[in-house]
């Protein structure tokens, strides 16, 4: 015990020098957080508390303020099928039924969101039943063909409230789940000509039936629309059925393309119809059924509104005028909006709760800098003397006048120099390259461009339902490539996002300018084949576009833009690709040869590799990564050279084993020659496995069942004391066998995701950002993971700055870069280099989005933001005045002396 406490004390001393935490006054200065819910599946508008209670596909239950759409409270239920919300009911409390085996019934306080009651149903309830909730009872309905079994429970304790009743349905209808729904505490079932209602309650169940007006087509679906029922038919119009104030059944035909809700309030019935028009507007139509009074409004937003998918409404009559309805609309692109009195009150982009891929894009320079760049670029191009000299002079003069104007206005304070907005109003690059555009693509194939300063959405684009993301090992991914950066004025930035077609799985490219969102010369490009792998060419063409090389199913090679094939032909003998099938663990390696007749490329498989099990994690290196230092200087002044193999990937498999339950295998594979460089086995190791791979090191984490804790293993690869080739690395000519240093550590938290920091030139030391299951992101210095840490460090090691080995990686709370924010269900961290070598931009995504900056080696290249300008100005001016005063005094004294 003594040893442990002293060890921890030592660790804290050591860590004090590594941690560079935030100061309290920096909160919110360069970080922001946005919270989301996900795509809404259940919703209820509560007029009394002016709140909207929702449940989402991300297993979230939340209360939103109806006024501004802000989240009042939010709870994330169990992940996966265990947390799927089956039913939501708002009475005095919010009651939810969730799960998919044993169901859990929970009731929540409406204002504070705290749990009031929680109980679980028996384990043997099948998932396909219906739930009906009211203040006292919870009913579970199991439909089997021609009868209904109703089990009932007390709402606050979960104890059975009487025996399970079996009710037989009227002969004209069959109780199949798609043709039945809950309707005002009774079960409604419909057949082609009949509507039957079976009351479910404490009384003796009554089954009543009504004849429907004849109409063409068989019924395919019955759904509940507020206080009415919607009947969808194979052909012919859909109908809304409701009972008017006298209890008479009313049938109304409605348009299939629109979404309807029927609301009864105070004896009147209102039909709300929300339809989409082609130009991104919605039309909202309100009709009072009794008087047939109709009002119609066009709803518009600064971004186009997608087709509505699900609506719920609440209405009340405002005198004798048009009804006053609030309508909550879930759009096809997962956006959620509230329409009140024909106006869009607010809109939440819930697609951002399901981010698939992220990229940070450099912004173009401002207009005046662009003119300067143009001037420099045109030098030497103009051959004619007059236009050359005079033109250049005039351009120089004009650009300098603009610069002078900006300087003067900045000094006079007319323009805030920090807010660098160009004339067109879109954001432009700042001096340090800290301002970037966060390009986000989501699971629902909606693309967002966000300003990294405040998370504002600059533009967005919904690509429709027929493009879907690719599947990766345990998530979805839409690869984003920047084909041309903002550096090449006058060419605009060019980016592409890869999707696949929903029905055919064929490749779909979306090519656009991420700064302006224009799709000139691009847009949605559909390929006629599936893609196996994609590579961005290492060299650009003469228009500065780095082409995409696409390996299609069947082995042929395509290019986007097709003109970049020339570049690839030149580089053909240096291009290699690999494909990995995560479900089987099979790898294939390809090389490319020039077809002499057509001067095009064709692929040839050169190696294949079969790992024993399916992959659980795979990590390569980042293309934009720079390794600044080729080696490590040891204590004895010799250099240990790093094994920096750009073709190396790390793959992990978990296989069941009879003796040790589960075995984790790690393989380091050279993807050019297909050789396994290193492999390692951990017994009794379980998922989740996360890998970070950068420079010459790999860090992976797994759950050790033996000691029931998360362990982190760091591998460090070195070529040795001599470097074989100082200029470039080759996997082909007599590959080197790296020496591998490895060390394992105990990590006291559960890891959700890991990512390394990246900087412009790779000079700054690397930190590993670890997403924790408790909703924080921890910044772990790589020095602590260094496999060369030793229990008894020698004096040479101390000189090198190696920290003594301690098994547990306990980090102080200062190293949590999200400080007191809790980010729910973190799914990934994206890091990007800024223009400053010291600074790395971090974007964390999950149910919440969080952006911040980290400085792994502190801000060594820029003055700290708490730099005391006033103090230094005061000191300098004091010194200057002091110098003058003493000069005066000295001369006076000299004069006096001279007179004596």
């Amino acid at each position, binding site marked *: 015990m003594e040893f442990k406490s002293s060890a921890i004390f030592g660790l804290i001393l050591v860590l004090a020098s590594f941690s560079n935490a935030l100061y309290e006054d920096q909160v919110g200065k360069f970080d922001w957080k946005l919270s989301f819910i996900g795509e809404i599946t259940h919703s209820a508008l509560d007029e009394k508390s002016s709140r909207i209670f929702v449940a989402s596909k991300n297993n979230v239950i939340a209360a939103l303020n109806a006024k501004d759409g802000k989240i009042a409270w939010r709870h994330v239920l169990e992940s996966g099928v265990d947390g799927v919300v089956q039913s939501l009911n708002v009475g005095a409390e919010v009651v939810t039924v969730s799960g998919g085996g044993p169901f859990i019934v929970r009731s929540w306080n409406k204002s504070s969101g705290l749990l009031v009651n929680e109980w679980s149903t028996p384990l043997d309830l099948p998932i396909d039943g219906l739930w009906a909730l009211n203040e006292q009872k919870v009913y579970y309905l199991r439909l089997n063909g021609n009868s209904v079994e109703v089990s009932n429970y007390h709402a606050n304790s979960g104890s059975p409230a009487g025996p399970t009743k079996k009710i037989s349905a009227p002969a004209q209808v069959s109780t199949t789940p798609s043709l039945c729904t809950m309707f005002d505490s009774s079960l409604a079932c419909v057949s082609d000509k009949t509507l039957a209602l079976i009351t479910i309650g404490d009384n003796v169940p009554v089954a009543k039936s009504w004849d429907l007006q004849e109409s063409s087509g068989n019924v395919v679906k019955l759904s509940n629309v507020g206080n009415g029922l919607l009947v969808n038919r194979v052909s012919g119009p859909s109908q809304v059925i409701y009972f008017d104030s006298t209890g008479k059944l009313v049938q109304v035909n409605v348009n299939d393309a629109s979404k309807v809700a029927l609301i009864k309030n105070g004896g009147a019935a209102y039909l709300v119809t929300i339809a989409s028009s082609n130009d991104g507007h919605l039309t909202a139509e309100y009709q009072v059924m009794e008087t047939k009074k109709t009002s119609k409004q066009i709803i518009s937003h600064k971004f186009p509104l997608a087709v509505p998918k699900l609506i719920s409404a609440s209405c009340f009559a405002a005198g004798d005028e048009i009804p006053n309805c609030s309508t909550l609309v879930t759009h096809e692109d997962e956006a959620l909006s509230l329409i009140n009195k024909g106006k869009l009150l607010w809109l939440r982009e819930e697609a951002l709760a399901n981010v698939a891929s992220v990229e940070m894009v450099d912004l173009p320079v401002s207009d005046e800098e662009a003119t300067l760049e143009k001037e420099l670029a045109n030098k030497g191009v103009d051959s004619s003397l007059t236009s050359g000299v005079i033109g250049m002079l005039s351009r120089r003069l004009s650009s300098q006048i603009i610069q002078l104007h900006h300087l003067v206005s900045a000094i006079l304070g007319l323009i805030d120099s920090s807010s660098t907005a160009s004339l067109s109003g879109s954001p432009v690059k700042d001096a340090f390259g800290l301002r970037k555009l966060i390009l986000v693509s989501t699971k629902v194939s909606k693309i967002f461009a966000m300003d990294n300063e405040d998370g504002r959405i600059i533009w967005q684009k919904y690509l429709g339902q027929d493009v879907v993301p690719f599947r990766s090992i345990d998530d979805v991914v839409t690869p984003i490539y920047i084909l041309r950066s903002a550096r090449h004025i006058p060419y605009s930035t060019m980016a592409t996002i890869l999707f696949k077609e929903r029905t055919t799985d064929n490749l779909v490219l979306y090519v656009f300018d991420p700064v302006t969102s224009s799709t000139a010369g691009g847009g949605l490009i559909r390929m006629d084949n599936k893609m196996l792998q994609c590579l961005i060419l290492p060299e650009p063409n003469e228009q500065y576009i780095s082409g995409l090389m696409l390996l299609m199913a069947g082995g042929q090679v395509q290019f986007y833009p097709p003109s970049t094939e020339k570049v690839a032909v030149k580089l053909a003998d240096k291009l290699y690709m690999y494909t990995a099938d995560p479900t089987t663990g099979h790898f294939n390696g390809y090389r490319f040869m020039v077809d002499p007749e057509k001067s095009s490329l064709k692929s040839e498989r050169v190696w294949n590799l079969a790992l024993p099990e399916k992959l659980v994690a795979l990590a390569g290196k980042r293309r934009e990564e720079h390794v600044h230092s080729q080696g490590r200087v040891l204590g004895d002044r010799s250099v240990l050279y790093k094994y920096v193999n750009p073709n190396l990937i790390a793959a992990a498999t978990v296989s069941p084993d009879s003796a040790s339950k589960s075995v984790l295998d790690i393989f380091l594979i050279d993807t050019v020659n297909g050789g396994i460089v290193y492999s390692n086995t951990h017994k009794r190791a379980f998922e989740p496995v996360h890998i970070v791979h950068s420079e010459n090191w790999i860090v992976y984490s797994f759950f050790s069942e033996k000691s029931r804790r998360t362990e982190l293993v760091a591998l460090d690869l070195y070529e040795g004391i001599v470097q074989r080739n100082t200029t470039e690395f080759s996997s082909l000519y007599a590959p080197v066998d790296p020496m591998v240093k490895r060390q394992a550590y105990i990590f006291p938290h559960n890891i959700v995701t890991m990512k390394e920091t990246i900087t412009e030139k790779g000079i700054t030391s690397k930190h590993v950002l670890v997403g924790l299951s408790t909703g924080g992101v921890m910044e772990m210095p790589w020095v602590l993971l260094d496999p060369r840490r030793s229990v008894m460090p020698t004096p040479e090691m101390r000189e090198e700055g190696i920290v003594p080995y301690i098994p*547990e990686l306990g980090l102080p709370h200062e190293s949590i870069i999200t400080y007191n924010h809790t980010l729910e269900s973190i799914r990934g961290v994206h890091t990007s280099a800024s223009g400053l070598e010291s600074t790395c931009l971090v974007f964390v995504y999950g149910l919440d989005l969080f952006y911040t900056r980290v400085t792994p080696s502190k801000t060594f290249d820029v003055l700290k933001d708490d730099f005391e300008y006033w103090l230094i100005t005061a000191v300098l001016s004091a010194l200057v005045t002091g110098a003058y005063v003493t000069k005066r005094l000295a001369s006076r004294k000299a004069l006096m002396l001279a007179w004596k």
Partner: protein
Amino acid sequence: MIHQSIFVICSLVPLIFANNESDIGSLKDDQFAFVTGKVFPPADLLSELWQSETRVYLKGANQKGFIREDGTFVFTNVPPGSYIVEVTHPKYAFEPVRVEINSKGKIRARKVNLVQTSVVNQVPYPLKIKAYSPIRFFQVREQWRVTDFLFNPMVLMMVLPLLLVMLLPRMMNDPEAQKEMEQFGNLTKYDMPEISEMITSFLGGNQQPKAGQRCIKPTKKNSKQASS
């Protein structure tokens, strides 16, 4: 370290027994347990609605628990295994507890020790989770203080020689010593122009008069000294 010698292997909340008659999969034959406990907030949180910011996690399981107004929480339908119950709050750190559920549904709780996993340090169940320290997420910014400035080694290095230069001559009021000093000064006086003055006169040719003035000064001084 007080080792708790007596502990009760808890008479737990009755579990939901799986109906073995049905054809439910093997996973559901296990006896699910409830993990219950109570969070005790520090005194200064009692005034606010601390429950809404406090979260409980059952690490290693998919089950979720939520805090009620009285601070209690329950994890429903937890399968047998070993889990860590962790409570988080933006301002306070809470001690995590390891909870072990055996195949019969019995629960025991112990302190989390990730390094020495075999050490059992039992804690009572149902769990009582207390805050142990406030969390410091932020660094404390250094403030400018006069004492810091004065005791800065650089400042001390400058101030001490200054004292020596300014005060020592004053302290030596002894006339004999002064005479000696003067003699010593006369000895070291050479009729050589100073190098710095040579350079200034060389570089700034037009500043002759000033240079002249400067040249005169010492001579006058010297003559005065000589006369006195």
